């Protein structure tokens, strides 16, 4: 009996020593890190531009405050941030896509502070303030550019074949037919990546807003359903027809984004639905000059206006951070005019700057859009609560497989949205 008591104690001690050793290994690190202030900055991979690391190092050299950049797997990003916010710890700054729907996911009422009093705010352009605001409060810093989502075309292919820039859906399909006849796949579309194909429908938003200024308000208060939006239905129907006619080639459901630069650089494809700095990216990767790539607005469902994002990735200070002062200090540091200018100079994929007084050279794509129209507005992705691009992408795949009709897609989107809204405790649902 006695012996077994000793043995219990012995085993427990062994386990304890073992765990203590581990504990020590863990706490040593935090002890050494405890002296300096470290700001934890959460972002999905590729959200942090290379030049920001340089700015952070300068900041750290000047103030002794270190920034711990944590780049998380993109598909886990929201989950990790939500859990950490719910635990009220482990975050000082986190990234968020601009616009109300993205910000709403992180419970702005509870987790974000108002930055309107900051010195850099007055330099922000209008769209950069709108995209970073929630319920009248400015909750994040936008150092990214806004971009147009439109159809980019290879202008040398167009001029070789004597094609005109389409103005409506009919002339658009005529261009596609001509490209097909010339042995060129009209459009590179990558439906395997669920986030993308929905832009064919999403870019219809602003014309609806022009028709009815309360369009977004009605969607967000559940007075209007996706199923009732005519141009959405038309766009999806036309998208289905385009796929049937082979405008996207054979491999639309296998194509992925990471092959898109090469696809457009190769000259095997005529067009792509994409953002306006994409030409610069092709140039830097494959050497085809960016001025070959020009743009026109999505001509589906009678649309003639431009569609933009709500801005890029925001830096949002977490309301519960113990180091809010240092966070604001960091923001002031990186928003000095020279640094913002250098930031834009060194980030080739950024385009129209979010701050006044910063010079940039507009791409051929943006200039060509300017020649067509200056009328532009934000799409539902940046405006409409609970809009879920990934589900829509999945449904569009189903449509291409013949398993869903455009009507069923919109109905399913409405049903999905209701569940999410109720889970978020929205009284309008």
């Amino acid at each position, binding site marked *: 009996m006695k012996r077994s008591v000793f043995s219990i104690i012995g085993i427990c001690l062994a386990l304890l020593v073992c765990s203590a050793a581990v504990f020590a290994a863990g706490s040593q690190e935090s002890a050494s890190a405890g002296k300096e202030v470290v700001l934890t900055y959460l972002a999905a991979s590729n959200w942090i531009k290379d030049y920001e690391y340089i700015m952070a190092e300068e900041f750290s050299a000047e103030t002794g405050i270190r920034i711990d950049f944590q780049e998380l797997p993109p598909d886990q990003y929201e*989950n990790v941030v939500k859990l950490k916010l719910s635990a009220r710890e482990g975050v000082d700054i986190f990234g968020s896509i601009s616009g109300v729907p993205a910000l709403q*996911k992180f419970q702005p009422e509870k987790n974000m502070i108002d930055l309107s009093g900051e010195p850099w705010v007055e330099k922000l352009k209008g769209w950069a303030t709108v995209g970073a605001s929630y319920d009248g409060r400015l909750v994040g810093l936008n150092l990214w550019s806004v971009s147009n989502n439109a159809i980019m075309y290879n202008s040398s292919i167009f001029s070789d074949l004597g094609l005109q820039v389409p103005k409506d859906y009919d002339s658009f399909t005529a261009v596609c037919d001509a490209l097909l006849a010339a042995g060129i796949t009209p459009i590179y579309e990558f439906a395997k990546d669920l986030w993308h194909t929905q832009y064919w429908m999403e870019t219809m938003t602003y014309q609806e807003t022009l028709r009815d200024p309360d369009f977004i308000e009605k969607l967000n208060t559940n007075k209007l359903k996706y199923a009732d939006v005519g141009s959405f239905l038309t766009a999806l129907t036309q998208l289905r027809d385009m796929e049937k006619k082979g405008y996207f080639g054979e*491999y639309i*459901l296998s194509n992925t984004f990471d092959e898109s630069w090469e696809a457009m650089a190769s000259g095997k494809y005529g067009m792509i639905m994409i953002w306006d700095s994409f030409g610069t990216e092709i140039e830097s990767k494959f050497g085809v000059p960016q001025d070959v790539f020009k743009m026109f607005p999505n001509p589906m469902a009678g649309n003639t206006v431009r569609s933009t994002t709500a801005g890029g990735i925001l830096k949002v200070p977490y309301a519960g951070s113990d180091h809010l002062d240092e966070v604001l200090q960091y923001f002031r540091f990186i928003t000095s005019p020279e640094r913002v200018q250098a930031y834009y100079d060194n980030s080739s994929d950024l385009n129209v700057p979010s701050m006044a007084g910063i010079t940039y050279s507009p791409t051929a794509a943006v200039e060509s859009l300017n020649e067509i129209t200056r009328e532009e507005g934000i799409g539902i992705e940046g405006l409409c609560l609970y809009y879920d691009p990934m589900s829509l992408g999945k449904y569009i795949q189903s*449509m291409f497989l013949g398993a869903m009709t455009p009507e069923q897609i919109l109905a399913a989107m409405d*049903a999905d949205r209701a569940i*999410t809204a109720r*889970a978020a405790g929205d009284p309008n649902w």
Partner: protein
Amino acid sequence: MKLSRYYPYWFVVPALLIYVLFFIFPSVNGFYLAFTDWSMARDIGSLKFVGLENFRIILDASMGIRSSITNTLYIAAWTTVLKNVIGLALAVGLVRKSFRSKNMLRGVFFLPAILPPLIIGIIFTSVFKPNNGLFNNILVWFGMGAFTKAWLAETAAAFGAIIAVETWRQAGFHMAIYIAGLQVIPEELYESADIDGAGSWQKLVFITIPQLLPSLTVNLILSLISGLKIFEIVYSLTNSGPGGTTAVMLTEVFDQFSKGRYALSSALGVIMFMIVAVIVMVVYGFVQKKAGAHNE
């Protein structure tokens, strides 16, 4: 009396403590959460009990979650059969004493079992690309260009790809268990069969397989469980596509979790647990009964 003195219960205590605290406790907690309205908008302190509401939503056909259950069963059935047939075939081939390089080959076949599944999925996504993908290139090379296709973009082919990759990943693992089982079969059984003039097929059916029943049991149970709990391969290979047609239970659990519908995700986890438990228990009971009957 005597037994518990020499095999004292407290030996179990450390394992039990860790297991209960860090695994059972959160699992039971998740069970409870499945009956609440927990979501990203609700603090965990102020949850409401909603009864079976979450289960109702899941079983509503329009949610498309039901098909993920049948998809999982389909994948689990195929992979269980293939892993075991291929694993056994490899084992039978690589257990022969005359086979010089067998140790190296065993090592090679076991290798995929230790690679991170997510990375395996990423590699095979590129292998199955329609143009310039390795698999289609090989088909063309062997003059079977007519069979090339966009493997991950057609539902049937995508299932095939998932099943193939999951089998690729695990067949070597099951091979190892079968080899172990084969090695303990007494040599005399084969010798006396030789004397009786039995052919190699007869030896396989009447000696090898019955003698292997214990390893077969273990292999069946483990491959069933890993098939029913398949996640990373589907997630990184097809991402449930095309059009959500290859979604499985765990990808749906993850999907609901990502949308901030925590309670729904937990409820789906509970359903999944029950399905796996029932299937595993039934198969286990069945195999045990067979094994018992054989031993008598």
